[in-house]
């Protein structure tokens, strides 16, 4: 439905970033809070974009009027990692490049799901990394990183994951 809606909106073949934007929202639906995670103070479900926003308006369009866990979805664009600690999902643009390591360090212990399409993201301690397989957008999961961030991923999500890794395990393999 989301995909269909976004396709209908762009009236063209969805770009990689349109798909990634829709996936970001879908990740939110398969996110489970661990019992030890501190309750979220905010009344909104925040999806934050750190760094250069390559998705642009499509993310806003998809998130419009959506709710996750009864909370309205809010898209925030933050220039610094520290500002993203209260976010539920933090999308780190691949454009961050070498800053990704420090960004992740800044988000350590923040109970936020970190997502990026940077090829070395999982190795650096990110939780979900988009992978392009042909024209198809897939994703890999680093369970160790998720555990450390006290982010609980639904098995449903893991079922469709392209790859599931433990500790930073180097290259993502199909």
């Amino acid at each position, binding site marked *: *439905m*989301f*995909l*269909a809606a976004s396709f209908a909106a762009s009236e063209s073949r969805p770009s990689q970033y349109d*798909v990634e934007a829709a*996936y970001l929202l*879908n990740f939110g*639906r*398969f996110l489970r809070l661990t019992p030890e995670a501190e309750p979220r103070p905010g009344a909104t479900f925040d999806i934050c974009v750190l760094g250069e926003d390559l998705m642009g308006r499509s993310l806003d369009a998809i998130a419009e009027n959506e*709710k*996750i866990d009864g909370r309205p979805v809010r898209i925030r664009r933050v220039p610094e990692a520290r500002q993203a600690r209260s976010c539920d999902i933090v999308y780190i643009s691949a454009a961050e490049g070498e800053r990704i390591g420090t960004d992740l360090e800044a988000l350590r212990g923040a109970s936020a799901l970190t997502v990026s399409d940077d090829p070395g993201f999982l190795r650096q301690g990110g939780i979900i990394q988009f992978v392009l397989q042909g024209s*198809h*957008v*897939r*994703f890999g999961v680093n369970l160790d990183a998720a555990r450390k961030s006290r982010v609980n991923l*639904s098995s*449903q*999500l893991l*079922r*469709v994951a392209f790859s599931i890794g433990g500790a930073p395990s180097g290259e993502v393999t199909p």
Partner: protein
Amino acid sequence: MRSWSSQTISAKITRMNLLVSGTALILAYISFLGYDWYSLRHDLVSSLDTEAAIIGANSVSALDFDDPQAAEITLSGLRGSPHVLYAAIIQPDGRSFAEYLRDPDFRPVPGPRLAPGDDESHWNLNGSILLGQRIVFGGKTLGSVYVLAETTDVAHRAERFGLISACILLLSFLIAVLATSAIRNLISRPLTELAQTAQVVSRDRDYSVRAELPSSSDELAFLVRSFNEMLEQIQHRDRMLEQSRTVLEQKVQERTAELTAANRELEAFSYSVAHDLRGPLQNISNIGFLLQQTCAAGDVDGPVLVEKLFDGTSRMSKLIDDLLRLSRATSTPLQRTEVDLSKMVERILKEHETQARNRQVEIVVAPNVYVNADERLLYLAMENLLGNAWKYTSKSASPRIEFGWRKDAQGTVYFVRDTGAGFDPALAGRLFRPFQRLHPESEFPGTGIGLATVQRIIARHGGRIWATAGVDQGAEFSFTLPAETEEPSEAAAI
């Protein structure tokens, strides 16, 4: 095949048993099958529902992240459900997202789709069930699952039920046959025997046969008993009929004999009348001739001859009078009254005494003899009997006439006894026939009609008369007069 109505009762019972049990079984078969069909379908639908729900739930992420392979892996879990032919996950825009085929060669035909607003529905297709269910996650419809399952189980069940029913039908047929033989002993056999007995009765007209009583005490036994009683009554009536027919035949024979005898007597009578009337007529004729001759010769014998002529006519007149009396004695109706017979006898004898004063006759009359009879006829009879007694004692040395009665086996017997000439007992049979005279006219005058008249009068009163005597030993005439008897027929009276 014979028609229903002409079959034997046991055949009818067998058929009825089979019909009833067969019908019951078929009805039970249909209802069981219907119930089974319904419940199997229901079970199938609910299991398909569960499977679709599981598939739907497990396909949420696949749909969300556009991963048909993951969805197909989920669908392949249906291999554990052999009745599922085909399953598919359809995206909201109607495109097929993932498919499952039990047999790779199977080509599903496009089936119905869920109507907007329906979350779940199922359709009965030709021999299979298609179930559709929406996949909803987080309040959003992600797509829908369709599962197509065959219902061969239901067909197998129907087959099995049919086999079982056929076995039961066969069993019930056997039981019906056994039950019929039992029923035959209870109902059919007594009925058949009764029918056979009835046939024997109507064919041979033999009412002495009896149907055998069945050992039971139901309506059948009652029927057989009633039938036997009916036969008994018919037999009894038959016997009575036979008896009365025999009696009737006997009576007819008797009457015929009587009639023949009467006819013969009548012939003899006419002959006698003609013969006896010709006697005096010949006399008169002869005397007339003599008178004619003497008158012509101028003889003086005329008055004597005329005297003889009158004698002849008076004899003839007397004969005709007696004949009239005899006729009256047989033809006039009886008028019975109480008659003092003693007084009647005395009066008759008194008349004779006054007419013949020169005779001395000892007379004994039993007093107070009353009878129920026609007085005029009885008087005629007694006058004849007493007149005979008076006449035949005329040459007796010490004449005696006695009237009396005695009791014997036949009841009261009255008698008139005299000491007169009597008669030869060998000729007693001729005594009461008309014109039969046992003594010559010259010795005792008479017409020979008197005793015949007496006999008829007594007979008309239902009595009997007979005589006992010896030559010169007197005679005794005995007779009975039954108080009230039916008048014998004319034939017997002549």
